[in-house]
């Protein structure tokens, strides 16, 4: 038994150190492409850490959004940055103008001061964490006590879609704001010509239905087990990214109001349901207990559509205008 505990400890310690090491490497690698790949690896290791911490819901979200979609966004942005800067300032991004090089003598003092400040704040924050009581249940008792009347049996879904559903409503607005912000920079993304068919196209044709099924499963199972709108939405969004990578482009007609509807349907459903409950129950987003399960499933389904559309359109906007460089290795 002691052996197992020791092994667990060792595993956690290695994982923790691995996270720090990967983060350090990702942030200080001299090559940006390498930095992003290391960052994606870091995200996957984070997912493993979430599993170790009994947070499977978070692990799913991290793997799909934190590592997967963020990674795709970063790579797409880097590819576009290189096509841009190659024309102007050659090699700015491939060999960054400011690598972590030895500092000139003038700024050595400020560098030292920075290290000192950061060390002091690390010690302070570390001590603060250390000083916290070693046993605490937080709000888990309150959640457990009300789980029966929440309409679902997965406590994380209960928190996200019922107890703290108002946060989730605002979060849907944050997603919408990201799209509006990106659009206000670029206008609606232009329609790039279709790149030639690749292996990816065949692959994505095969994978699309599988991913849609996975998303539907995650959405359905989220009521009782790890999963839910965010995980399903990000898997569906990733499907969209894969299709976009393989050269598929939505028809121009789809990019108008059907897209706008898809982007807003999650937030819109929250608002409409919120106003309805305000009218009937006198409380914003207070579902009648008997209907709670159905209402949560409805909200989650529409939120899934919005999240997927948002993530896919963010990727399209960041990567559009230029042909994707998928074969980055040839540059190395």
């Amino acid at each position: 038994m002691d052996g197992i505990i020791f092994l667990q400890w060792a595993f956690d310690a290695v994982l923790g150190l691995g996270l720090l090491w990967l983060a350090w490497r990702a942030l200080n690698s001299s090559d940006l492409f390498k930095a992003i790949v290391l960052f994606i690896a870091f995200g996957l290791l984070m997912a493993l850490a979430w599993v170790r911490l009994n947070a499977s819901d978070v692990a799913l979200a991290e793997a799909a959004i934190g590592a997967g979609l963020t990674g795709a966004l970063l790579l797409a942005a880097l590819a576009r940055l290189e096509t841009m800067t190659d024309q102007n300032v050659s090699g700015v991004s491939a060999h960054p103008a400011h690598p972590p090089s030895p500092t000139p003598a003038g700024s050595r003092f400020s560098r030292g001061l920075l290290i000192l400040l950061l060390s002091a704040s690390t010690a302070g924050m570390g001590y603060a964490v250390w000083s916290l009581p070693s046993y605490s249940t937080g709000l888990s008792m309150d959640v457990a006590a009300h789980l029966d009347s929440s309409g679902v049996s997965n406590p994380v879904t209960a928190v996200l879609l019922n107890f703290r559903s108002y946060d989730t409503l605002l979060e849907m607005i944050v997603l919408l704001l990201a799209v509006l912000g990106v659009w206000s920079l670029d206008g609606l993304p232009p329609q790039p010509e279709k790149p030639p068919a690749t292996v990816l196209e065949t692959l994505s044709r095969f994978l699309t239905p599988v991913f849609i099924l996975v998303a539907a499963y995650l959405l359905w199972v989220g009521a009782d087990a790890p999963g839910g709108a965010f995980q399903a939405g990000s898997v569906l969004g990733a499907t969209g990214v894969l299709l976009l990578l393989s050269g598929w482009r939505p028809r121009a007609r789809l990019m108008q109001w059907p897209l706008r509807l898809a982007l807003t349907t999650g937030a819109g459903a929250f608002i409409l349901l919120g106003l309805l409950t305000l009218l009937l129950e006198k409380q914003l987003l207070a579902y009648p207990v008997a209907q709670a399960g159905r209402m949560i499933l409805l909200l989650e389904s529409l939120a899934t559509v919005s999240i997927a559309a948002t993530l896919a359109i963010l990727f399209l906007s960041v990567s559009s205008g230029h042909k994707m460089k998928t074969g980055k290795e040839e540059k190395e």
Partner: protein
Amino acid sequence: MLIGLLNIDWGVITIMLPLAGGIACVLWPAMSKPAGLISVTGVVLAIAGLGWRIMENGTYRHAVGGWGAPLGIDLFADGLSLVMLIMTALVGLGISFYAKRFFSPCDAVRFWPIWLLLLAALNALFLSADIFNLYVALEMTGLAAVALTALTGRIDALGGAMRYLLATLLGSLAYLLGVVLLYHDAGSVDIATLAQRIEPNAAVWTALGLMSAGLALKTALFPLSFWLPPAHASAPAPVSALLSALVIKASFYILLRLWLELFGAFAEGVSMLLGLLGAAAILWGSLQALRQTRIKLLVAYSTVAQIGYLFLIYPLALVSNGMAASMAAYLAFSHALAKSAMFLAAGNLMQFGGHDRIADLDRAVQRLPLTVAAFALAGVSIMGLPPSSGFVGKWLLLDAAMSQGRWDLAVVMIIGGLLAAGYIFKVLGYAFTQAEVPHDARAVPAEMEWAALLLAIGAILLGFMAPQIFALIHPDLAVNASEAGTVWTA
């Protein structure tokens, strides 16, 4: 009938209405302008309703989802929240009518949905009683503000927006780490519950440090103000007005609220530090403003200086005696009106002359009298001359400083006032003189001139409203406030 109106949950409406309006703008871009104006007007009415309700029934509380804190999220409004909401609604209304004429149809489609969502975020923030929910509202506010900053797509605006985004994200993360420590220390994110549970231990002190630093960065308290001038000066005029008048007040409000409810009792040393930084901000911001050759940068640096006054509230120990909330809200309201008027006036001058070089204003006073009047009236309040609201607010601060023997702060305030007079008369002086090279001038729509002027008049009128504002926040202090309000007539 009237009782029915009183029972409507106006607090929730102030958040849901602009959200719905923003979504309508996304769905029907052609309807952006009317949807925007209707939503903003509706918010003004809803806040009037909320204010009526608070005056009838006392503080407002709404348990979202019916759960109640600490499991659920509560909306909460007292006098302080109400004044911040009124400030947002009135200044937002003025800026909206300005923006109606300012933006081309193409830009309007991009401006309105983001502005409505920003308005919802601000209302949600001022109504929240939950520190994690405040984080989400803070991020909404930040992303919307950055998106609006970059609206012109010009290179200086993009650079300003990029720096602003990184600063605002850093500030939010520091705040969030503070939330994490408080939650794990006290087992709740509800402010009222936390207030009962927290004691000054290592985790709470660290949370205090992280949250104060993060929020000070987002409020652009000197020396964390490096991001503000490029962002506020490069944004389109109505957006600059929104950023300077309202957005920085959001993070300031959270800090104030945390201080009033959680930290104020034991963090006197940090109060002193905040006050010193505030004093430094007044001097540095005013001197920088004096050096500028462009109006919008001048007004942006003036914001850095005026933020300093807000932070003088902390060392003057007003946090403990109950005056802090009313003073802070009053100063913030006064600055919001004056600064939005100034930025809108600057926008008119830019549209009129095609530039914002101070030296080339070229007798603007003859050709844009209303705009120059707006700038001058707003300037009266920024300088702190009677009978403006700026005078009343700064007089009360000065009074507090002198009665506590803080002559250093008093001297800083007086110097700040003189420097403000310097930079405002610099602009006005050039507005009266003829430039060496005459310029072509474009017409400025009357609504844009009137929007600036009305906001500036508001900054003056607020000076007469001090007793009412103070009574709203703290009924017991109404007597003191009415004395303060009549100081200038004596």
